């Protein structure tokens, strides 16, 4: 229960101040992914969630069939300090039936 309390307080904005709270360490990107990915995978048009990097910075990637305005609004820009990037992959097929556009 104590951990839940910490997690909730981490959701607030001033991350630096929060990090000085004894016993609260920043969650790993894998933990943040695990916490939210079911929610994101349920958004229509989302086909995957993973971890990538750009310019040496880790980020969460949300893979989508097509990058639309609606998805850009529904997928948050960040989660608990980690940036989230939408990547248009198209549908993923077991390869004999992969379709090129």
């Amino acid at each position, binding site marked *: 229960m104590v951990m839940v309390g910490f997690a909730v307080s981490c959701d607030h904005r001033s991350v630096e101040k929060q990090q000085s709270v004894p016993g609260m360490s920043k969650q790993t990107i894998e933990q943040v992914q695990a916490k939210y990915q079911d929610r994101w995978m349920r958004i229509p048009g989302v086909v995957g969630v993973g971890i990538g990097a750009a310019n040496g910075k880790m980020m969460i990637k949300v*893979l989508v069939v097509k990058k639309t305005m609606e998805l850009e609004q529904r997928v948050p820009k960040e989660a608990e300090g980690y940036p989230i990037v939408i990547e248009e992959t198209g549908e993923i097929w077991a*390869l004999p039936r992969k379709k090129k556009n």
Partner: protein
Amino acid sequence: VVVEEVGDIRALAFTGKFDPPNPVPTGVSVGNKNECAAGTNGAVVRKNGVSYFLSNNHVFARENNAVIGEDILQPGRPDSVPRCDTNFPNHVADLSEFKEINYGFLSSNTIDAAIAQIQSGTPFTCETACSYTPSDTTAMALVDMEVKKCGRTTMETTGKVTGVNVTVFVDYSGGKSALFTRQIQFSDIAEPGDSGSLIVTNDDNQPMALLFAGSAATTIGNPINDVLNNFNVSICSTP
């Protein structure tokens, strides 16, 4: 004219259409006798002194529909002459084990894999048709690592890791979809028919993933250690 003919012959020889390679290397066309579809034999794997070709369930085991012992052909039937030949001249292995694919959104998978015991009369080599042999040390995927693969359709291609710990929905035939977790995402390094290729590190050939899915923009592979542990096999690393 000469240049055109050479290019054509190279591509055909790779899949073994007219002149099946002897010995059979890895990274070439294979398929199940009971369908006209082709994938790739990514590697030779071994346990208890027995050698097997490694590929996907959807290449060797017809997406769960196969019976153990079904014939594996090299090349796969789309690459035989005539196309989709039913004489099955190149029976090289027999389906031994496959990991069942769990369809639907409520269960998840980590591998799409199968192994087929190489027939005693089939000469083979653990070297790829791209003239390299996988290392016996596997590699953990890290974003931006450079990789390559040797496959039936696009032969040797290079790319890099673009995502790790990926959870992804993958479409199969008949409108079925399966959820995969802990997958490795790569830049687009494959086309249909490359399924089953072994993805290795570009500089030292360390096995990283079993290629099985993709789109026009990306390629997805299973973590190779999950594949090897599932069948309790090791990759043959001597040519």
